[in-house]
Every structure is written in C-alpha cells, then in structure tokens.
C-alpha cells in the first residue's frame, strides 16, 4: 500500500515546527514545556504508526536542475528507526520534565531536542542521497548543541567539539561516496540519480550498480567512504572516542541520542546500503569492523569508572554487534542487525534512564561509590535486572535472541567459507564474537551489582525519584521484558506476532534481493530447543563470564594499565592532531591578527582572480573613448587626481582624511555633471557622515606612525597598483559594453505618472524620480535585501563589540 503523502510530509514538518514554537511555548508553560515536547513527539509517533503496513516513495521536488528531490521512502527499516526516534522521544521528553528541573537553558534544550527528532525522522525516511546527507548532518549539529548544553563546563565544550569533528568529517567522506554512487548510477541506470530507494533507484538495480562500480574499480572506495560515515556516526573503532565524552550531555540526551537514535543512524545506513552493496568485500569489511568494535569497546567498558561511561562503551559495543550482523551474509545476518537494533534500543534507553535516576538521587555516578541501591530504588532495580540481563545476553531476556542470531550467523559464515576451501582464519569470526561477548557479560553484571550487595558507608541518603522519571524507564523495561518473554511463549507455540511481523518487515528492508534466499517476512524467534554449536557458544560465553566475574577488579585494573599506554589510545592521536592544527606554524604566518595582512591578501587575490578571469576569457582592452569629455568634467577629475595624490603624501591623519574627502566631493560633482542628482546627493551625504565619523575616531589615533621601511612602502605601492589596474580594466570593460537598453527603456516608460490614469493604479510607478521608483517599487525586493544587510551589520557590530565580554571567554 502506498504511504499517505500528507502523513509523511507532516512527519517532517511537525517536529521542526514544534522546535520553532518552543521558545514561545516556554514563555507560557515554563518547565512544563517538557510535556508540550512530549505531545509533539506523540503526534509524530502517531504519524509513524499511521504509516505501518505501507511501502513506497513520496517525492517532493527540491532542486530539479540537479536531480535532487526530497524523496521519502517507507519500509520496515525506516519505520523501525522512525518508531524509535518518536517513541523513545515521547518517553525522553516526559523524563526530561523531572530531570531538567531547575536546569538552565531549557527552551534551547527542548527546541534542539525536537529539531534533532525531526532530523532523525528525516534520516530514517529519506530516499534521496542528498536529502539523507542533509538530515544526517543536521543530527550531528543538534547533537553538538545538546552535548555542549552546559556551556560553562570545559568538558562539555571539549566533548561537543570532538563529536562534531568526528561525525561531521565522517559525514563528508560519506558525501563523497554518495557522489561516486551518483556518478556510477549514470552509467548503470541510464541516468544519474540520487534516488536510493523506490522505483528506478539504486536499490532497485543493485546488481547493475555493483557491476558498474566493480568495473570502474570503485567498489572498495565506495564501501570505505560510506563505511566511514557509518563508523563515525555509530562510534565504531577507532572512532568510538567521541561517544564516552558525549556523556557530558544531560542524561536524557544520552538516552535519546547516544543510545536509541542518533548512533543508530550509522547502523541504519549500513542496513540500508546492505542490499545495494553486499559483496564479499562488504562481508570482510563490515564483519571485521563490527566485531573489532564489539570486542574493543566491551573491554573498555569493563575499565570504566563512571556508570555513564560504562554505558557509552557498551553502546559502541552493541552497535558493533549490529554492524557485524549486517556485515555477515544471509538472512541470519540481516535478522541479527534488525532485531538487535530494536532490542538494544529498549534495554539501553532503559539503562540510561536508570543511570540518570541513580545520578540524580544518589548524587554520584562513580561505580566504586555505588552499591546496594535496590533498598532505596526498588522499581529502578527491577528495570535494571531486566535490562542488564538482556544486555548480558542471558535467556530469556531480549538481548539473548539477537546475540544467539549473531553466533548462528557467524558460525554459518565460518563453516561455509572453510568448507568452500577458505582459510581457517574464518574461524576467527565466531571466536571473536564469543570473546567480545564475555566482556559484555562482565560489565553487564557489574552494572547490575550497583543495586545489590552492601551499600557503601559513604553513600548518603538516596531519595526516591519522581514518577515522571521512573515511569518511562519502567515502560521501556516492560517492553524489553515482553520481547524477551515472547521468545519463551514462542517456544510453547504462542508467538508474539506484532514484534515478529515488525522485525520481519525490517529484515525485508535489509536482505539482499538476489543473494539471500528465503525467509522473507517470516521472522520468528524462540528459545533453543536442541543443542547446537551456537547454543554452546552462548553457554561458553556465560560460563567463562561467570567464572571470571569474581576477579573482575583484577581484569579491570589490567585493562586500565593497557589503556594507559598512549600510542594505543585513539584519543591520544585525536588530541595530538587537534592541538597540532590549533598551534601550527602555518597559522602563525597566515593569521597575524593584523588587519593589513588580511587586506593585502584579500586585495591581491581579488585582483589576481579578476585579471585572471579576463585573461582566461580572452577579453581585449577596449579603445579609450575621449569624446563627450567636457572641460568642466576634466577639471573635476584632475582635482580628484590631485586629491588622491595628496592623500598619499599627507603628513598626518587629519590632512589625509580631509584630502580624501576632496576626492569624494569631486566624485559627487562628477555625478552632478553627469546628471545623476540622486547619486550625487547620496555621495555627498555619505561623504559627510564618513568625515564626521573619522573626526570622532581620529582623536584616539596617534598623530603619525613615523616613517615606514622602504621595502614595505614598495610592497604596498605594488599592491595598490595591482588593485588600481584591476579596477581600471574592469571599468573600461564594463562601460565599453553597450547592451540593448531594454530595461532602462522599460523603467523610463513605466516610472512616471501615466498620461491617462484613474485615481488609483498599481501598474506604473507614478513618480518623477526614476531612481527612487526603481528602488522602492520595481526593485523593492532588492532594497528589502539591502536594508536587511544593513540591519545585520548593526547586529554584528553589537555582537562583536558589545557582547564580546560574554560567552566562552570570561
């Protein structure tokens, strides 16, 4: 069924509109804006819900001349991400109402969060590569603003910049990949298109696209470019470094952006491109990337000292699991990725909300200071049991099923490859999967143990959280539990049909049409009923994990010791690079902070570009026409020249300014002689104002700077000559051209009062002063733009000069 055009477009308009109205709403509602934002998110959730069961494309033209459109595509995968963005959005906004109580900058917070939700929905439904890229970068920008929410904290600013640099630069690589795809589509599909999904799109002609890319030798570059975009966004190794820092954001933001939605954009991209680009190269690249991330970040999570840091590394690790799933071949791989996106969003968003409650009520996030919280926070503890065990991958909780699918897929890929004569190295895939999962088990249990055991003495009174904070966490926990128990009942023959059908439709969006056989739309999951190699892999994970848990502290210290070695830390490279760029020698030469350096560069570049363009176009100099030059005009111009020379020779600033105004006034007289009274008037008035302002400023300047070195005088003279030559040539060229005066004739005809007219008319200017009529009537739109610029200039002066004391530098 075709999706409703209205619903789909409204879905993109509503969040941004809501964001725009937020400052006004905040004035009326104050802190209750949270519930307004939650209502906006609920509307979006309803709109997403109305799209269930539909598939298809809706196209709105955007830049037709470049073939760019705002094409929106609905399928299972888009709906999954859309549901997460709006559904978790509702809960997070409600939760924010409690969490953000008394915090600064709430209007900005809710507006940005709503704008983010809109961008995320855009990413999910965009079917045009350019539109996808725009929404993609919008999520990066809003994430930047939200991470840097506490503008006074250095850590927030560092984290915000880091996430911006990493994700936006990754996005630029992705854009290059998109352009290559666009180009390849020109040959493969007959016409170059940015359309990713739908009819006549790249996905619909995946085989032709892959063949074309392969013949051009561009398949691996495209995989790498798109992969870089996904890896930076989804915090894959070695770009995982921004995610732990991003935890400086308020906890609801962490739960929303950095667990359930934005970081899912990367894995969404991988899932979206999987049917298009799935090849052997894809398998190696993404399986390796995913498994490496899953393992490395799981190990780092064990070493974490802060509960949000632990969750951040764990998020990166689970994103790695999803990428690995999409990297592996077959329906199993697609099922792993699709199902784990859902499971991870449920348990991880719940855990982040739990972390927020703990930090809020216990007053600390340090893992070592927390323990035995179940006595004070019983509901939260129950949520944690469900979510943490799901994260650990223990049956019957939801994470178990998707992890089991990963083991299954890894096992299948390895056995198939080895049976087909591949090297035994393929066994690394299942081995690494198990190895990484052991650490996942370890940190999940460690997180759970915050609630059990003895309560440390130092931990003071733990308050009980408001309902607005516990309810969303409990709801997410209940959903996670329902998905988990669905597997148990399925074993007994009662399937959780909505979830299975939904995940099935997501799988449909990510399976390779030709390569993956069977399994379309009939996804189901249940507890294992017989002993299989992959069940043994799960058992091994849990067994080794349980055996290692008693020595958790020693493992943690060991990881910390390794982590302390600089060359092993991606952060070390990041900080070194950023610092190096910040203070490199080149910057000191280019950015002297002196106006004259910039003026010289600007003038020379302008002159070179202009003259170069004339030369490139082969324009010849027109002959000088001296006809029509009256004696009066010559005298005026000569005086102006004398004035100009006098400016250069002026012994003081006062003399310089006064002689400069001679030039200005001579130009005004020139206008009068050329019968342009309006221009002359303007020139006179502006000249007067400039003179007055100069007088205001001059008193503060030294009377004379002293003599300048001869070399610099020579250099300045040359620059002046170059600029003068450019202007002269331009004037000669532009006045030599005599286009047919169609426009001027029109103005002359239509500006005055017509000979015959009624009492009211709008088709003529009705004014004797053509210049003014052009300004305010024929070209009023231009004038509106110009006065806007004047207003902006005033605003920027206010901002630059008067507000410079505010902001970052205090």
């Amino acid at each position, binding site marked *: 069924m075709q999706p409703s055009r209205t619903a789909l477009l409204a879905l993109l308009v509503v969040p941004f509109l809501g964001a725009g109205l937020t400052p006004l709403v905040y004035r009326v509602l104050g802190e209750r804006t949270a519930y307004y934002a939650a209502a906006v998110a609920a509307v979006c959730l309803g709109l997403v819900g109305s799209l269930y069961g539909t598939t298809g494309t809706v196209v709105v033209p955007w830049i037709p001349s470049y073939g760019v459109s705002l094409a929106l595509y609905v399928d299972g995968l888009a709906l999954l991400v859309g549901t997460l963005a709006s559904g978790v959005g509702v809960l997070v906004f409600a939760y924010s109402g409690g969490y953000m109580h008394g915090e600064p900058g709430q209007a900005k917070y809710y507006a940005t969060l709503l704008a983010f939700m809109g961008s995320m929905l855009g990413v999910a439904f965009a079917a045009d590569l350019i539109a996808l890229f725009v929404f993609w970068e919008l999520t990066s920008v809003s994430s930047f603003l939200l991470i840097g929410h506490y503008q006074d904290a250095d850590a927030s600013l560092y984290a915000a910049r880091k996430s911006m640099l990493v994700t936006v630069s990754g996005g630029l690589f992705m854009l290059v990949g998109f352009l290559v795809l666009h180009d390849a589509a020109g040959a493969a599909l007959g016409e170059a298109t940015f359309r990713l999904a739908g009819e006549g799109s790249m996905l619909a002609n995946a085989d032709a696209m892959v063949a074309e890319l392969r013949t051009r030798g561009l398949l691996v570059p495209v995989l790498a470019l798109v992969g870089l975009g996904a890896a930076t966004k989804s915090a894959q190794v070695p770009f995982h470094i921004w995610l732990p820092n991003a935890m400086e954001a308020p906890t609801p933001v962490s739960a929303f952006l950095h667990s359930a939605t934005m970081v899912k954009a990367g894995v969404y991209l991988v899932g979206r491109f999987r049917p298009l680009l799935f090849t052997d190269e894809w398998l190696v690249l993404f399986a390796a990337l995913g498994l490496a991330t899953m393992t490395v970040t799981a190990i780092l999570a064990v070493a974490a000292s802060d509960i949000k840091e632990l969750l951040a590394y764990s998020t990166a690790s689970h994103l790695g699991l999803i990428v690995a799933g999409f990297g592996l071949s077959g329906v199993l791989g697609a099922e792993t990725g699709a199902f784990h996106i859902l499971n991870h969003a449920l348990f991880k968003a719940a855990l982040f909300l739990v972390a927020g409650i703990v930090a809020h009520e216990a007053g600390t996030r340090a893992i070592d200071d927390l323990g035995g919280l179940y006595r004070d926070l019983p509901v939260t503890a129950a949520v944690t049991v469900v979510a943490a065990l799901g994260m650990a991958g223990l049956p019957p909780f939801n994470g178990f099923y998707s992890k089991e699918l990963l083991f299954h897929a890894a096992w299948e890929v390895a056995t198939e490859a080895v049976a087909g004569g591949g090297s035994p190295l393929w066994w690394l895939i299942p081995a690494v999967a198990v190895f990484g999962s052991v650490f996942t088990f370890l940190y999940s249990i460690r997180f759970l143990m915050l609630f059990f055991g003895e309560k440390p003495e130092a931990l003071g009174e733990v308050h009980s959280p408001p309902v607005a904070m516990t309810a969303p966490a409990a709801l997410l926990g209940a959903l996670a539990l329902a998905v988990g128990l669905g597997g148990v009942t399925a074993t007994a023959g009662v399937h959780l049909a909505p979830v299975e059908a939904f995940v099935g439709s997501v799988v449909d969006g990510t399976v390779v049409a030709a390569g993956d056989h069977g399994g379309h739309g009939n996804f189901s999951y249940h507890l294992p009923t017989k002993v299989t190699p992959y069940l043994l892999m799960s058992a091994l994970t849990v067994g080794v994990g349980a055996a290692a848990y008693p020595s958790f502290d020693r493992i943690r210290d060991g990881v910390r010791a390794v982590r302390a070695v600089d060359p092993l830390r991606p952060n070390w490279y990041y900080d070194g690079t950023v610092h190096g760029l910040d203070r490199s020698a080149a910057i000191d030469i280019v950015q002297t902070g002196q106006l004259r350096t910039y003026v010289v560069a600007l003038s020379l570049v302008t002159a070179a570009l202009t003259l170069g363009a004339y030369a490139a176009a082969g324009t010849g100099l027109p002959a000088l026409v001296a006809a029509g030059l009256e004696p009066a005009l010559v005298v005026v111009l000569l005086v102006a020249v004398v004035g100009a020379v006098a400016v250069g020779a002026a012994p003081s600033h006062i003399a310089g300014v006064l002689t400069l105004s001679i030039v200005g006034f001579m130009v005004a007289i020139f206008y009068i002689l050329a019968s342009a009274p309006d221009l002359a*008037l303007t020139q006179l008035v502006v000249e007067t*104002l400039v003179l007055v302002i100069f007088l205001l400023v001059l008193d503060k300047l030294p009377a004379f700077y002293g003599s300048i070195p001869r070399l610099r005088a020579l250099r300045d003279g040359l620059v002046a000559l170059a600029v003068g030559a450019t202007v002269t040539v331009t004037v000669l060229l532009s006045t030599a051209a005599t286009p047919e005066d169609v426009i001027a004739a029109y103005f002359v005809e239509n500006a005055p009062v017509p000979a015959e007219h009624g009492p009211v008319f709008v088709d003529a200017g*009705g004014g004797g002063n053509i210049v003014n009529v052009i300004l305010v009537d024929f070209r009023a739109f231009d004038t509106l733009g110009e006065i806007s610029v004047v207003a902006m200039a*005033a605003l920027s002066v206010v901002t630059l000069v008067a*507000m410079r004391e505010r902001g970052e530098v205090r």
Partner: protein
Amino acid sequence: MSGGSLDREPTVIARTVTRLVVPVILVTAVALLLQGHNLPGGGFIAGVLTTTAFALIYIIYGLDYLETELLHRRPTVPFGTGTGIVREYGNVFAAGLAVAGGGGLAAVALGFPFLTQGVAFFEGVPVYHEFEIASAVVFDLGVYAVVVGALLTILAVVGAE
C-alpha cells in the same frame, strides 16, 4: 566619557553652530524623505543625513548628552547592549524592517505580488488641488528607519569604545 569623546572641550562656536544646524539637517532629511518619489531624495539619503545630525551631537556634546538631556534619564551602563539607547536604536531598525516587509505583505493580502506598490490621487485637496500618495512612501519610511537605527547603533557602540 560623560565629558564627551574628545579630550578637549569643543569651542563655543562649535556648540552654537551645532545647536543651529542639527534642526535644519533634520528638517532637510524629512523633506528629502517625503519628496523622494518625485524629486531627488529618498529613504536612504534621508536616513544617512539624520545619522549625520546625531553624529554631530555625539561629537560636540558627548555620548551621554542625548540620554540625559532629551530623555531625562541617567545612562546606566554606557552602551550595554541589553539596556539604554542602543536597545532603542535596535527597536528602530527592527521596526523599520517590519514596516518595509509588512507593507509588502499588505500587497499580498490585497491579492498582488509581494511588495507591489500602488499610487493614489486625491482631487480637491486644499492648497494642493491634486495630491498624490504612493504606497512606496511606507516602504521608504521602513528604509529610513532601518538606516537610521542601524547606523546609530554602529555609531553608538563603536563610539563608546
């Protein structure tokens, strides 16, 4: 600051001439604004001329003179952005933009394209006999307000440095 931006006290001649000249400049500016449709003039020129008059006051009488003598209040923080006369200048150019854009929207409301200007003639007006009013005057008024507000903002902020 309160003694004026110049270190030296301006002469009596300068003060007296300024007192005489400023009203003349302002009247001229208004005349230029109103006659702009048929004779040389217009919002931009009138705006710059008005600014020149204010700049003269700033130079001769100091930056605080306008506020203390005309508005009868003590300037608080000199030229803070949120308070004082800079804020009022800001209101002037914001209002100017609103007038210019709003006039354009009025045309839309009447069914014409954005910023369409019309002209009306009134017969039998005393003294003038026939009197012409162009809707462009509204737009020109907006231009005038933007130019005056923006230039004075710049002048005041930079002058306070």
